[in-house]
């Protein structure tokens, strides 16, 4: 058995190329994030491989927190390279399904980061604290760079933080929530907007919860209003109805 230690998609990709070259089958590889025993994969020639769809799914799944992701990726790659070229078309194969599911969960988490990061202004910097479900900071930070190129911003998360100073995108270690500002004066206007754009006659908290994962609620300032809005909704509709009947 060969022990291999990788951190991130690019490292995994290199290691996998080497393992293919050595014809090392998946059950003879032990993937580890931080192994006490180090690794025993010797450097050397790597087998080239190119598969756009696997690349797309794999680079996403690599950000997943599941511990079995490296093992799964190598198993799928091995099968693709050993007489199962159509494996990714077999959409109901357990390995394919798991790979697709992990990639989908990561993409969803990237999307959530784009949606639920809330910057708070501190001097000339905009700072957010966010808690992604997977390791998506490096995958998603370029989006914020393109969008907020003219601003200075930081996105702090428990694993990794991203910084943009108008010139260069840098990454640093994880940060606690207390490292970000506790508020922003704009938030009261934002809450005013949130409370008024909501139609009490259409209240549907189930749809809301389905679309907005609860893990992000405590960093969204508008969520402080939720209980009051829900409690008040029925009353507002009844008042409107009875006023209309009298009128």
């Amino acid at each position, binding site marked *: 058995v060969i022990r291999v230690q990788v951190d991130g998609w690019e490292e995994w990709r290199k290691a996998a190329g080497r393992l293919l070259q050595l014809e090392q089958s998946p059950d003879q590889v032990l993937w580890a994030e931080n192994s006490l025993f180090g690794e025993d994969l010797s450097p050397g020639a790597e087998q080239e491989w190119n598969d756009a769809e696997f690349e797309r799914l794999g680079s996403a799944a690599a950000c997943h927190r599941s511990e079995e992701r490296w093992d799964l990726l190598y198993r799928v790659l091995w099968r693709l390279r050993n007489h199962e070229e*159509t494996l990714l078309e077999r*959409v109901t194969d357990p390995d394919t399904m798991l790979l697709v599911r992990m990639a989908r969960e990561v993409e969803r988490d990237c999307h959530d980061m784009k949606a639920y990061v*809330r*910057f708070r202004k501190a001097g000339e910097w905009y700072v957010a604290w966010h808690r992604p479900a997977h390791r998506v900071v490096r995958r998603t930070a370029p989006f914020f760079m393109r969008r907020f190129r003219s*601003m200075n911003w930081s996105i702090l998360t428990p694993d990794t933080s991203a910084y943009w100073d108008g010139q260069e995108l840098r990454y640093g270690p994880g940060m606690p929530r207390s490292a970000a500002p506790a508020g922003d004066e704009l938030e009261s206007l934002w809450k005013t907007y949130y409370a008024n754009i909501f139609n009490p006659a259409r209240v549907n908290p189930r749809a809301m919860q*389905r679309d907005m994962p609860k893990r992000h609620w405590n960093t969204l300032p508008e969520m402080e209003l939720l209980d009051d809005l829900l409690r008040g909704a029925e009353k507002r509709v009844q008042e409107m109805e009875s006023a209309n009947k009298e009128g």
Partner: protein
Amino acid sequence: LHLAEKLAILSDAAKYDASCASSGSNVRRAGKGVGSTEGMGICHSYTPDGRCVSLLKILLTNYCIFDCKYCINRISSNVRRARFSVAEVVSLTLEFYKRNYIEGLFLSSGIIRDSDYTMEQLVEIARTLRVEHGFKGYIHLKTIPGAQDELVQKAGLFADRLSVNIELPTDEDLRELAPEKNRPQLERNMATVENKLAEFRGEKKAPIYAPAGQSTQMIVGATPSPDREVLRTADLLYRSYRLRRVYYSAFSPIQDAHPGLAVRARPPLLREHRLYQADWMLRFYGFRVDEIVPLARPELALDMDPKSAWALQNREFFPVNINKAGKEALLRVPGFGTRTVQKILRLRRVQAVRLDDLKKMRCALERAKAFVVTADHTPGRLLERADLARYLAPAGEQLELAL
């Protein structure tokens, strides 16, 4: 009035527009300011009504010289009125955007002075954001009924999406409830924009012009017009003006309702939901309006989805062999969506598709089972059963709005 009070009044007044979409625009604008549009819309929050908050959706003002009976902002309503200045809208948009609350601005307005003046104001706000501030986020502008063609066209130079609400299913409905509006006038705005879009289509050096196209909204349940009329109008608009979306808005009780409108309790949300499902069938499943709501049955069933309802009435079309049938036939199977059909087409290239495969694809198998033949299953007499409907209207179907 303070800015916060204006914001409260003018967002409350804007909430009857269902759309908050920020998708469909994938262009790189020049400019030094903040912003990007990369095709996919992003919902930054959800309100307790389950609706997405993607844009700062406000009216410039809720003063209005029109008297549309269903509208809270009509001249004869006694709601509180307010008006933003151009600078206030610009600053709110930019400040919200920089904190990542929103994808951009959705700006509409009551009609003040006249249509041209109102349209000019809206265009001026979009122009200020784009030109003075280099804003590259999403802008959705309403075009104002009755405004000059040139003004309507100019809006497309700054906006990602333009829309004018068709309001009600028929011209008679408009005559009854929105006396200052009429179908030719509303469609004229759509045609004006579509002509400009057509002019630029395929032209290499064309300017960025309303890259997210046009949409509209129809209020459902304020008049007795049946679903058939609603869908015929939607279909006509899709085909005539290449609209990206028609939004259906279940008529919602408003404060200070017009005495001419019968008092209605709750908005008919289930009907709205069925209309979105039918709309989806028109756009993505290849159905015609006459198939979904034939003259003899002008209302959509409420107790089951419209595709199941069609299947029940057209049993001779089934069973569909999922290992052989074309894409068009597969899309007609109740319980299959476009994603399931794609997976089936992909899988069957390399192996015979079995019932267990369908289960793993997480389609609504209970509904589909009666209508398909797989490598290891045939519906047999199930298709002939008189109580087939029982299998199609599962208890506890979730009301998930398609917005």
